[in-house]
């Protein structure tokens, strides 16, 4: 008979698998409906899962709210664009690129990974500074980081194209590609959360002083989570760029920050399942609202919400959740098979 502890660990190991199954069902249903718009929405949702799960790796485990993760998406998207765009096009659009990048014509997968790695390196470097701060000062510093990246990207025109968009990215993202990355993010997030470092980090979230007294080096664990988190946000950004085909620094600024935060808060910051459920719930709600904004014909008249009401409704929903269900939809719980089931299978 396995011990209580082993059972719990085994049961926790089912979380990423169940979440993967949930996403798989989501893709199958979306594709089964046979509507191209819905298939696109499914791919976009899964890209967001990648980003928000990446975001959760840091925010969920450390309890420090970051406003800077959209910037990692920006870095990932641009690095992937620099590496994959047709060299002739880069010569025309981005004349200031260094030699190596200007000639690069990489396949999409290594380019996406390079985007993630670049974001992770920036996360490691900036995190080394920012994470020396704690609490609200750290959050504000991440905000300053976001604004800094946005200012640089919007003005460094020869290299980033400035505020005019970079166009012509290879649009290779299908729901299946996005599902693959989303699952990878979930798996890594779950492994990290149950690793010694992840547990130590969560201990600092619950009680900084007690954790420090138990010999936990808060800074090191936070930095590790921040770097890992930067990697998946970078990947998410690269996927987003290749999904839309056009990237722009303002696409990775306050709007995206708000969306990521809203998804995390509504799903529940306390658990990985919360992050995934939040993305699904909000993406479906947003899709519904966008359709309402376009107008729905009822008989002879069309009802349409005014443009912009989507964000208002989301923001109000977020405030209501914060007031009435502050722990989010999942309230910090994970989806997992009950310990009884895994016990029977395991022995």
């Amino acid at each position, binding site marked *: 008979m396995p011990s209580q502890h082993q059972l719990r660990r085994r049961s926790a190991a089912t979380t990423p698998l169940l979440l993967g199954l949930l996403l798989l069902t989501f893709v199958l249903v979306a594709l089964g409906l046979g509507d191209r718009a819905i298939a696109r929405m499914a791919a976009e949702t899964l890209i967001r899962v990648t980003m928000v799960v990446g975001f959760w790796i840091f925010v969920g485990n450390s309890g420090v*709210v970051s406003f800077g993760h959209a910037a990692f998406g920006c870095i990932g998207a641009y690095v992937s664009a620099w590496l994959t765009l047709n060299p002739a096009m880069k010569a025309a659009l981005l004349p200031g690129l260094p030699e190596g990048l200007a000639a690069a014509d990489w396949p999409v997968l290594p380019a996406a990974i390079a985007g993630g790695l670049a974001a992770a390196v920036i996360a490691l470097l900036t995190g080394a500074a920012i994470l*020396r701060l704690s609490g609200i000062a750290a959050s*504000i510093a991440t905000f300053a980081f976001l604004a800094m990246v946005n200012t640089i990207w919007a003005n460094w025109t020869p290299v980033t194209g400035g505020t005019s968009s970079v166009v012509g990215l290879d649009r290779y993202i299908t729901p299946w590609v996005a599902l693959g990355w989303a699952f990878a993010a979930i798996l890594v997030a779950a492994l990290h959360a149950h690793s010694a470092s992840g547990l130590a980090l969560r201990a600092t979230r619950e009680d900084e002083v007690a954790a420090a007294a138990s010999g936990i080096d808060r800074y090191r664990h936070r930095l590790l989570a921040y770097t890992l988190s930067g990697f998946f946000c970078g990947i998410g950004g690269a996927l987003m760029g290749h999904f839309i085909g056009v990237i722009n620094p303002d696409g990775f600024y306050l709007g995206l920050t*708000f969306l990521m935060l809203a998804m995390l808060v509504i799903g529940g910051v306390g658990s990985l399942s919360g992050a995934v459920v939040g993305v699904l719930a909000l993406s479906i709600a947003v899709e519904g609202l966008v359709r309402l904004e376009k107008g729905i014909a009822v008989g002879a008249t069309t009802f349409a919400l005014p443009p*912009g009401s989507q*964000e208002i409704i989301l*923001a*109000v929903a977020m405030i209501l959740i914060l*007031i009435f269900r502050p722990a989010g939809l999942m309230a910090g719980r994970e989806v997992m098979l009950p310990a009884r089931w895994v016990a029977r299978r395991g022995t």
Partner: protein
Amino acid sequence: MSLQLLFDALALGGIYAIAALGIALIFGVMRLVNFAHGQFIACAVFALIVPSTDALAVLGLGRLPAPVLIPLILALGAGLAVAAEALVFRLMRNASPVALMVGSFALGVALQNLLLVVYGGRPKAVSLWAELSHPVQIASAEVPLLQLIVIVTVAMILAALAIMLRHTRLGLEMRAAAEDFTMARMLGVRANRVISGAFALSGAMAAVVALVLVAQTGVADVRMGGQIMLVAFIATVVGGMGSLSGAVAAGLAIGAASAFLQAGLPADARPFRDAFLYGGVILVLLIRPQGLFAPVGAKPRV
């Protein structure tokens, strides 16, 4: 250093100081980092013009004579902030500072999109008090009249606030609440009154910033509060969260740094001025994480 530059630095720093004060006041009494402050500013700007999505702005309230207009806009700003407190933040009184911060972020997004729905997304030209941009000769510098007015107004507001905080009952209660909210309540300070008071003051400060911004730039833009709010945050953090004088000093310092960077940086680097500014702020925080003028009570207690 030229006299001109000094005036630029003072005027910009003064606006930042007032914006930072608006954020620090609320943080002081309820540990809320108010991300909606920028939208309070934007709302006060748009209150000047008639609601419509047309590209051409028609002044509504903005046509009133200044002695009527200024108190009216200040009252509107204060009213908006008090309403936000009553409808959103009062219900979250026991939430963690992080949840409060996220809630105010959501409120800001809601307000911004409300403005977008009502007024449309394009920036609009607004000419408010255009005659104030006349330059005035002071010694060797040509200074726009508005800049002088801004500097004098900021000085007056700071003085009035200092007097209010030291010599009125509400001011005393606010300082007590900022020191230790629970203790203040036990000693008979009414929480709702103090918090509403802080929000009203903060909203009025947002309105002051709004008026100055419109008169200076001649533009009403839904996004106009964002940048100044960011600087104001940074000023409150650098000044030491919860310290009002720290926020003012840091606001002035950031305004001055920004004016000097604008003048001193080579032309190629000038578009990146804000990036240097934010980078500098992160540096300051690394050296003094608790801020430059942290109040004693800000130290974490075990």
